[in-house]
């Protein structure tokens, strides 16, 4: 009886279990169906993200050459060490370990991580930009031990500027700003782009295209195999108009003199920039792999403003170098002829005010040629006053002064050649005739940039064509060099050759006869030029400020071209507080000497030694 009951109970309870378990297994099957079929796409994507990584292959920027294809800007390999938080299990541990491996302060690493905390976790946080080989080796070893699976070492092509010459011309590179990323579809966050100079202006050519490598990684981030690889495309190569040796001659000369300033040297025929400098300079290599804060702070807080490109951004009073513009206006407007004579007694009176010549005893009676040679102020007061400010303004502008030159560099500023309209508009005042007298010797409100002075020299040299200075000569996108035609001239002044020749004669005499430019003389090359010495402060002011440490020495100019009758080179040298224009002529001498020696295949002149000829 009991046995029968037992049997019955067992059968019932077993059947119950059977149903329950069948239901349980059905539920399991449905669960798997949901995961594997319904939600398959989602999990498949997650699995792919798990084991596939896309690594950027940085494209090297294009190499920059001089006009004879001597490399000026190259690339080197550098290594950056970054944390990719996407793969981090314990950020604190990673930071601590990485700091000790790299030999860095833990707080410094933490600070960097903190700064990028809000960025998406797949974006690498760069801890060391230009890692030493020892650091790379230490990190790589740890990675192999699976201790730092979330730290990546990336090889980054980095700019190298072999000689620190023409820093302002090349400019520097840096990480792209967020604003630029949103403005330009071609740019992505983290890209290295040109921030100034050639690097900036021709960034689109130089940048190249990053490649990518898709790899399979395992759970500790080790690469197992490559799925596909798109190699990076190197940026286009640029051939500049600059001549390495001329550039070097300029840099050597400035090193010798120790003055701040600028120099721009052109081919007067087409505006090719043969040399270009701004002093003080900086080392663009410091920016190449990301500039550190200390260096950046010292560059930006330096009172000499080394990041400022004086050649295109500095505005200075031209002094006597402006006299050729006044002479051109007077001659072309028919106010005088080259033989027009003025008597200089050391000073002259205009509108009831005395105006002094620099030579106390006066120059006596002289014509235009000698007035240029001697830089006689009274002569130019007189003809400037006769010509009038409107005409001076017109011709100075035609010669390139008070205008942007249009050089292919960013942030060029405009100088100023005043006119009554300008004064009315900006100062709300009438023009006084007495101002014209001051302007006639390059004082008053006239201000010019060194690059516009170079254009001025080139225009006088080539007979009136206001060439546009330019740096780019040819581009190689991998299929060979293609010449870039020089930009069109800005204007062509209808200069009478005979009248212009009188001015050129005067400029030739400045260098080769009794003038102030004999420092630039090169036998057989008919160097022509004009010095200018511009006060940075009035004589009365000088006395007042005399007791301070401020540098009150005059600025020195030298504009030049050579040879006089068939010019091949023209330009300007400007020395900030350079005391006298004849010091600037020393620089011009060395660079022209180098230029002609190279052209004729002679050995280049040795590094200059200026001490003997320097005006202290």
């Amino acid at each position, binding site marked *: 009886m*009991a*046995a029968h*009951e*037992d049997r019955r*109970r*067992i*059968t019932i*309870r*077993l059947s119950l*279990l*059977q149903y329950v*378990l*069948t239901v*349980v*297994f059905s539920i*399991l*099957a449905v*669960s*798997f*169906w949901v*995961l*594997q*079929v319904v*939600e*398959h796409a*989602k*999990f*498949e994507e*997650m*699995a*792919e993200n*798990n*084991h596939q990584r896309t690594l950027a292959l940085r494209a090297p920027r294009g190499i920059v050459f001089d006009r004879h294809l001597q490399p000026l800007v190259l690339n080197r390999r550098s290594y950056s060490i970054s944390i990719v938080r996407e793969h*981090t*299990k*314990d950020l604190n541990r990673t930071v601590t370990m990485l700091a000790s491996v790299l030999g860095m302060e833990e707080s410094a690493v933490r600070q960097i991580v903190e700064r990028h905390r809000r960025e998406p976790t797949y974006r690498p946080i760069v801890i060391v930009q230009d890692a030493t080989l020892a650091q790379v080796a230490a990190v790589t070893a740890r990675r192999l031990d699976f201790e730092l699976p979330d730290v990546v070492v990336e090889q980054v092509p980095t700019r190298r500027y072999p000689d620190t010459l023409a820093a302002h011309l090349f400019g520097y590179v840096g990480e792209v700003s967020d604003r630029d990323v949103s403005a330009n579809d071609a740019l992505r966050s983290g890209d290295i782009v040109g921030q100034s100079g050639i690097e900036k202006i021709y960034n689109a050519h130089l940048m190249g295209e990053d490649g990518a490598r898709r790899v*399979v*990684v*395992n*759970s*500790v981030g080790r690469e*197992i195999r490559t799925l596909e690889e798109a190699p990076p495309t190197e940026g286009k190569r640029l051939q500049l108009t600059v001549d390495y040796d001329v550039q070097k001659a300029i840099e050597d000369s400035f090193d010798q003199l120790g003055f701040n300033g600028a120099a721009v040297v052109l081919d007067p025929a087409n505006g090719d920039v043969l040399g270009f400098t701004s002093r003080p300079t900086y080392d663009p290599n410091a920016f190449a792999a990301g500039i550190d804060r200390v260096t950046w702070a010292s560059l930006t807080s330096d009172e000499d403003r080394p990041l400022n490109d004086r050649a295109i951004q500095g505005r200075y009073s031209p002094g006597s170098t402006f006299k050729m513009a006044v002479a051109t206006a007077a001659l072309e407007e028919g106010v005088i002829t080259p033989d027009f004579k003025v008597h200089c007694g050391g000073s002259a009176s205009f509108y009831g005010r005395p105006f002094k010549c620099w030579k106390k005893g006066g120059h006596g009676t002289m014509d235009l040629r000698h007035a240029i040679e001697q830089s006689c102020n009274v002569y130019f007061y007189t003809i400037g006053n006769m010509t009038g400010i409107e005409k001076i303004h017109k011709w100075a502008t035609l010669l390139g002064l008070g205008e942007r030159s249009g050089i292919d560099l960013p942030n060029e500023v405009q100088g100023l050649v005043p006119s009554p309209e300008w004064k009315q508009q900006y100062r709300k005042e009438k023009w006084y005739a007495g101002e014209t007298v001051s302007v006639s010797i390059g004082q008053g409100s006239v201000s010019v940039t060194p690059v516009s002075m170079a254009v001025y020299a080139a225009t006088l040299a080539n007979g009136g064509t206001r060439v546009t200075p330019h740096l780019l000569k040819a581009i190689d996108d991998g299929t060979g060099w293609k010449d870039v035609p020089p930009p069109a001239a800005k204007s062509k002044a209808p200069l009478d050759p005979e009248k212009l020749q009188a001015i050129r004669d005067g400029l030739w005499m400045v260098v080769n006869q009794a003038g102030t430019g004999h420092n630039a003389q090169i036998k057989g090359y008919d160097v022509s030029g004009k010095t200018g010495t511009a006060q940075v402060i009035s004589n009365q002011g000088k006395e007042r400020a005399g007791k301070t440490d401020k540098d009150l020495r005059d600025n020195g100019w030298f504009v030049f071209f050579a040879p006089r009758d068939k010019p091949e080179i023209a330009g300007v040298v400007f020395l900030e507080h350079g005391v006298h224009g004849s010091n600037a002529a020393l620089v011009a001498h060395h660079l022209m000497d180098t230029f002609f020696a190279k052209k004729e295949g002679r050995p280049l002149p040795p590094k200059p030694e200026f001490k003997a000829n320097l005006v202290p």
Partner: protein
Amino acid sequence: MFERRLYYHIDWALVGALLALCALGVAMIYSTTADPTRAMSRMYITQLYAIVLGLGAMVFALTLDYRTFTDKSHLIYIGLLALLIYVLFLGNVQMGARRWIGVGGFNLQPSEFAKVGVALVLAKFFGENRGAPTMSDLAIGGVLTLIPFALVAREPDLGTAVTLLPVFLAVAYLAGMKMRILGILFLALLLAAPIAWKFALKDYQKSRVTTFLDPSLDAKGAGYQQIQARITVGSGGLTGKGFKQGTQGQLRFLPVAHNDFIFSVLAEEQGFAGVLVALGLYLFVILRTLDAARLAKDRLGSYLVLGVLASFTFQVVYNVTMSAGLAPVKGLTLPLMSYGGSSMIATLAGFGLVLNVRMRRFTN
């Protein structure tokens, strides 16, 4: 002794399903570990040895009448307790737990055999009484279960220890324990949970539960395995990525893929189709075993079969659920498929007893 006519009563269908699952396991172990560049590439060979040994144990378990085993069950039980105590003090330590005894190059895990031992002793104990078990019967049965439970839990190996509880519950259930008492037991467990939470569970055990409830709480730590398990299973799709083509298991995003997570690997590489085959095989084994329990000629036989089945079923259901990331990660292997010699031998020996009961249903 083994009579020739008994041979014809062996449930070959069940044996076939068991062997099919073993083969599936070996294939998956091969897929995840056979890599000439890695030291553990010969694991599938070891597993094959274990299967052979297990089949030997199975043959041994069906040669003698199951009543011979249950008659000696008190001795077997005491022997097992001795082994468990021995392990606790002198066992080999691996991954922070003392679970193994070294036997000539092999590591034996006595806790796996405890399941069979407990099934035998409980079958005997409840089989001797007629009618529904009294409260004192239940108490004694409970104590018989809790002694090995405590010893295994001390190793510590809470996962394996927990598999002993279903053995007791199942046998008591079949022996006629009132459903009311079953309900009270569940209620008591439910009430004990917060107390256990506070006092008994270690921090890592707590974190496993909290991260199960919300894996993203600790996506890189304890929740990691669970998220990875779901990705592994889900990315398999309908037909799978193919043999040895699974990225999750092959690239080790999923930990111990050849062991606790072998079912996830199956799901990834063979897809939902493979999952259905494996689940079908397991369900077949379970239903076939329930059948054996029903057909058994005496209560003792039924209890023994269900006792063996209980821990097996519990482990299968839990492991498969966990493999899909649907249960907290616990170190519970999948019987017949996961890598592990002791488990394989004990499981096959257990099924030897099941076959034993079934084929002797007509003998006296």
